[in-house]
């Protein structure tokens, strides 16, 4: 059976319908990245500057989350949410994906902060900066620049993993693809197109970030 028959044309005609799922895919991705970034940054601060118990707690959190498949976290939150708060599946997905990525972003931010030479914060302290000023004006701006390539990889992973939201019935790209397939019975072509859309998205994301990395690069 050729993939270039009438039903193939039908798949291509469904492209606008597929692309309508982009909104959900992108908003899930961005919200999860934001949530994961906030938790991750706090975790990194706790592990670098925190007292021993806080350090241990943050480390245990990261280690545990990194060992849990996204699907386990997702279903757990889904059942928890539907049991107690009548949480929407969109919220479940954002929370699950955000928590999952937070453990990885914590590692990225921590490595970035620790890569800044001690002399930088010593020099800041020597001119009378408070620890707070020191961190936000001297250490963090340098650390974040070094994080960009690693953060870009993680962002691409979050974008791709957002496709798992379809299991909860969220009508993002993947789910819409399955509707197209049940109508056209063209799984190969449909997944090819969906794969291509994700490929373009990840390329835009990573190229965009590496452009940004060059823009904010410290001269020399």
């Amino acid at each position, binding site marked *: *059976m050729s*993939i270039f028959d009438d039903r193939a044309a039908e798949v291509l005609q469904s492209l606008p319908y597929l692309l309508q799922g982009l909104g959900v895919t992108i908003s899930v991705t961005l919200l999860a990245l934001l949530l994961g970034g906030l938790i991750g940054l706090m975790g990194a601060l706790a592990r670098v500057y925190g007292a021993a118990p806080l350090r241990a707690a943050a480390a245990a959190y990261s280690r*545990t989350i*990194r*060992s*849990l*498949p*996204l*699907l*386990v*976290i997702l*279903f*757990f939150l889904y*059942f*928890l949410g539907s*049991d107690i708060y009548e949480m929407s599946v969109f919220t479940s997905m954002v929370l699950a994906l955000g928590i999952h990525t937070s453990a990885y972003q914590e*590692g990225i931010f*921590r*490595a970035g902060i*620790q890569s800044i030479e001690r002399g930088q914060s010593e020099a800041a302290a020597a001119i009378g900066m408070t620890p707070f000023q020191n961190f936000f004006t001297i250490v963090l701006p340098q650390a974040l620049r070094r994080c960009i390539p690693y953060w870009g990889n993680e962002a*691409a992973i979050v974008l*791709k*993993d957002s*496709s*798992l939201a*379809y*299991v909860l019935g969220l009508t993002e790209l*993947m789910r819409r693809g399955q509707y197209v*397939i049940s109508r056209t019975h*063209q*799984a*190969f072509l449909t*997944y*090819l197109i*969906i*794969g291509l859309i*994700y*490929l373009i998205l*990840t*390329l835009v994301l990573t190229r965009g970030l590496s452009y940004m990395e060059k823009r904010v690069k410290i001269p020399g």
Partner: protein
Amino acid sequence: MDDQWAFFLRILPELWEGLKMSMYLSVGALSLGLVIGLPLALVKTYGHGVLRFVVTAYIEVVRGTPMVVQLFMVYFGLPELGIVIDRVPAAIIALAVNSSAYQAEYFRGAILSVSEGQYAAGRAIGMSQGQAVLHIILPQALRIVIPPWSNEMVYMVKYTSIAFLIAVPELMAQGQVIITRTFRPMETLFWVGLLYVIVLAILSQIVDWIETRVRIPGYQSDRRG
């Protein structure tokens, strides 16, 4: 609490079957991924022309698309082209293809981190390019690659859970079966999650132990962040 424990003991046999399947998928995917990924890394590093371009494109495409799309492509898409693959091998192939691209990048990074002088010194005593790569570069790169490879291993073990979407009876799928039967989703998922945590802790320990065993005396004292 006693009730929880009794519940766990009751579902353990089923979870254990699932865990064995998860491990089977992981080992299959990681080893096949290694067998594909290492040559890809060599071609991307030392190759040129069309071959290098094809390999680079393969790596970019695989890394740019979701795991679940790759899985469905193999299991639902390929049959339309006349290639029908059983669910378990389909899952292993999809996971292995995904892993091969990441492993290729890790191997390449490790190869490039071995200094140029090592290669030059090998050539200077008369080694061919192949000998210098085989005897000088790879033994060092394979040590350097262990920490990132360990990360990849964790990712793969976790990603085997999506095989449940094509009804492979691995740990996640067994959990779902139990949930539908018992209507105790939270407890079930807790135990499923705990099994993943325990298994991954053990596997990471083993890899760490291997890394220590093969460590070059006095060299690369601690690369882990």
